[in-house]
């Protein structure tokens, strides 16, 4: 497991409508501001959260985001975990490729948000759902 660290606090945001994706962006903004990420880092993390939140809604049929503050020695990080009980991703490697899209997007959501974060993991199974966990360390 790559996301080593002690979880200090968590918050869960439901994702059922496109307004919830806005709430996801707002909560991630509040957390990253409190954690004193730079403006560019905040913007990257919020943008990744927006992409992944939209995926949870559109491809997963809704789900939730769990935010967590990770402590690892002197390092602090924000962990975002998006979960849904949707159909799952049949081909993860393909889904991560830029330009690939199964929905209305430009096909930059997964690959793009992976680039904006430090660590990225997809757990998915057909009929079970998808959980995407991603961390950005400060």
């Amino acid at each position: 497991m790559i996301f080593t660290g002690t979880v200090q606090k968590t918050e869960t945001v439901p994702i059922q409508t496109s307004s919830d994706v806005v709430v996801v962006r707002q909560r991630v903004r509040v957390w990253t501001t409190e954690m004193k990420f730079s403006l560019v880092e905040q913007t990257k993390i919020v943008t990744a959260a927006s992409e992944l939140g939209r995926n949870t809604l559109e491809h997963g049929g809704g789900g939730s985001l769990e935010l967590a503050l990770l402590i690892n020695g002197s390092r602090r990080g924000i962990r975002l975990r998006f979960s849904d009980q949707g159909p799952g991703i049949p081909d993860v490697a393909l889904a991560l490729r830029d330009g690939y899209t199964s929905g209305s997007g430009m096909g930059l959501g997964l690959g793009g948000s992976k680039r904006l974060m430090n660590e990225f993991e997809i757990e998915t199974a057909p009929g079970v759902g998808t959980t995407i966990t991603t961390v950005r360390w400060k």
Partner: protein
Amino acid sequence: MERIPILRMGNYLLVTIQVDMHDKLALTLQDDLTNRISEVSAKGVLIDISSLEIVDSFIGRTLANIASMAKVLDAETVVVGMQPAVAITLVELGMSLPGIRTALNVESGMEYLRDAVANHEERDDFYGDSTED
């Protein structure tokens, strides 16, 4: 229903996006703007995104769609005021907004639109009315 206001100034339409747009609101703006261009025969559209704290792939795609639809309706679009952090993030995300004319601020955006529209009219004068067909 929630809407983003579209202001008219002569041949131009002006939009300032001042709320964190959810996807449906972005699509509503796309429809409203396209309809307004046609209604008032607008020649230019200026979209100010200086208040936007992020532009993700959906918002980027909506801006690109607006520019394409405006083009088909014979109007130029310019997007102004993108924050530096947003530009950095967009490029890293993998979007370079091809097909969208951008300018640093409203003033240079309007200057671009005036020039584009003036050049366009000159061409029309030279070739007659239907050269762009």
